[in-house]
């Protein structure tokens, strides 16, 4: 892994490392830092029978579901805050084309953490799913006679895809704001791909080592993808694109409209920069955050 002097690869190359049938986990929470340029590239390249081991990366799940690429999803909550439930994902579950396994957030994070810490299980006090399936959670007596826990089994995805603020070529990754489940996701995945807004020199990382979320030893590939979370946002860079999300949400009510939306925004565009050009620079600039606040002050709550 660390034998290569630089871990920088192209977005297309990074996406190619995810094979059909692979299991994925993706960073992000609600409308924040979801690796959506990577997701679009994967949809553009085409895959089938993917498994998602997820917590709250609703937009990644929704776009992969809309493209018909998902077979199985482990998750705790997919909800477009301010819009409603994920339509294409939910429809596919209702149609029986995506199998699911539900957890509480803590249960799901703990399953990822178990694998990330190299453990065969993780004890928690909450009863995940309450009537737990035997393969995901079991009641276990403490060997010290001081209580009972729920043991949750490890989940180890093949690939973790993370979008962050900045990284150096060696794979030291920094992110401002909340870190959601990235730490656990990167630890547990066999391969870690990080897309970032900016590539910086290692010296820049060394100036604020307390901001480093993933040290180089956790990371396999780094991809430079400005606006790589759009239409979700990146704290300190740009806010989520509410009208764009609303457009998708409206389209996602019907299969036909979703297909047209995917044609326009994914299949119809050769790459991420064509996507950004189509969005137009003025639209992207309207998302730029207030540097003093870290967010877009003027955004409407729609």
């Amino acid at each position, binding site marked *: 892994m660390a034998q290569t002097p630089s871990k920088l690869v192209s977005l297309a190359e990074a996406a190619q490392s995810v094979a059909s049938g692979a299991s994925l986990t993706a960073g992000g*929470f*609600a*409308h*924040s830092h979801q690796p959506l340029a990577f997701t679009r590239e994967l949809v553009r390249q085409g895959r089938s029978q993917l498994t998602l081991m997820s*917590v*709250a990366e609703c937009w990644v799940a929704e776009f992969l579901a809309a493209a018909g690429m998902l077979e199985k999803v482990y*998750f*705790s*909550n*997919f*909800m477009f*805050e*301010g819009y409603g*439930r*994920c339509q294409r*994902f*939910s*429809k596919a*579950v*209702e149609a*029986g084309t995506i*199998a*699911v396994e*539900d*957890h*509480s*957030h*803590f*249960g799901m*994070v*703990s399953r990822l*953490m178990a694998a990330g810490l190299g453990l065969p299980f993780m004890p*928690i*006090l*909450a*009863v*995940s*799913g*309450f*009537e737990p399936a035997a393969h995901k959670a079991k*009641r276990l007596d403490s060997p010290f006679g001081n*209580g009972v826990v729920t043991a949750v089994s490890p989940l180890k995805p093949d690939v973790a895809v993370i979008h962050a603020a900045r990284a150096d070529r060696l794979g030291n990754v920094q992110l401002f*704001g*909340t*870190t*959601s*489940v*990235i*730490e*656990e996701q990167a630890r547990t995945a066999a391969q870690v791909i990080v897309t970032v807004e900016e590539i910086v020199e290692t010296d820049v990382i060394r100036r604020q080592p307390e901001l480093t979320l993933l040290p180089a030893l956790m990371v396999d590939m780094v991809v430079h993808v400005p606006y790589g979370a759009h239409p979700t*946002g990146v*704290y300190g860079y740009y*806010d989520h694109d509410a009208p764009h999300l609303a457009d998708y949400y409206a389209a996602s009510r019907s299969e036909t409209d979703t297909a047209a939306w995917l044609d326009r925004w994914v299949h119809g565009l050769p790459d991420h920069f064509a996507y950004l050009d189509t969005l137009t620079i003025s639209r992207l600039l309207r998302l730029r*955050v207030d540097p003093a*606040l*870290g*967010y*877009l*002050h003027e955004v409407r*709550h729609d």
Partner: protein
Amino acid sequence: MTDVSRDEYMAVAASREIRDGDTAFIGTGLPMVAAYLAKATHAPRVNLVFESGIIDPQPVDLATGVGDYRLVHGSTKVAGTFYALSLLQQAKVDIGFLGTAEIDPYGNLNSTVIGPYDRPRVRLPGSGGANDIASMAKRFVVIARLDRKRFVEKVQYLTTPGFLTGPGAREAAGLPGAGPVRVISDRAILGFDPASRRMRVERLYPGATLAEVQEHIAFPIDAAPTLEIEPEPDLHLLRLLRDVIDPDGVYVGRDER
């Protein structure tokens, strides 16, 4: 003042559930409004925790979700999801708020599926932190509009434990939290009988009747021994809600009375 909306009654009632010094686990929507209202009035030292990993924010603008950057700015700590949730397990969280698609007489909740799990009629968003909050917070409050499809005799999937099958069931299941204390609806405030653990009607909003509340609930429900009428909210609270916390009426509607 007769122009108080049901949403406003709900927000004020939810806010009252927070005590000063509490650590409160907060989700999007009415709970966020209620928490801001509590912090601005009777509970200035409430510590708000969000499942995205934000601790004690001081937002300038109303957030659109628990991961909203409006919450990150000016928080006293930003961490990750595991950190926030592990506070529940550590018994550091006094109160949590939950919404739901279905609720039964014992306060058990379903936010997972309508219909069979493997081939549901409606796939809902899933537990998220709800099961964790209900299992481990010291107490929790449900916020739900009355509807015979929501208040049902039996939930179709047990996402989130209330009192389960009744007295002693939570303890037997090993759940560390004490369970639900209140169900705040759009016509009345409901609670649970301490002996039977079944839901009961505790306070009616002005204009609502017990019969009307019972009509909107699909299981038999009685009134508490002393059924009270919720007073109209203080003008100061309403001004805060309308002018400061949710000026655009994003979460707290004005019209429905």
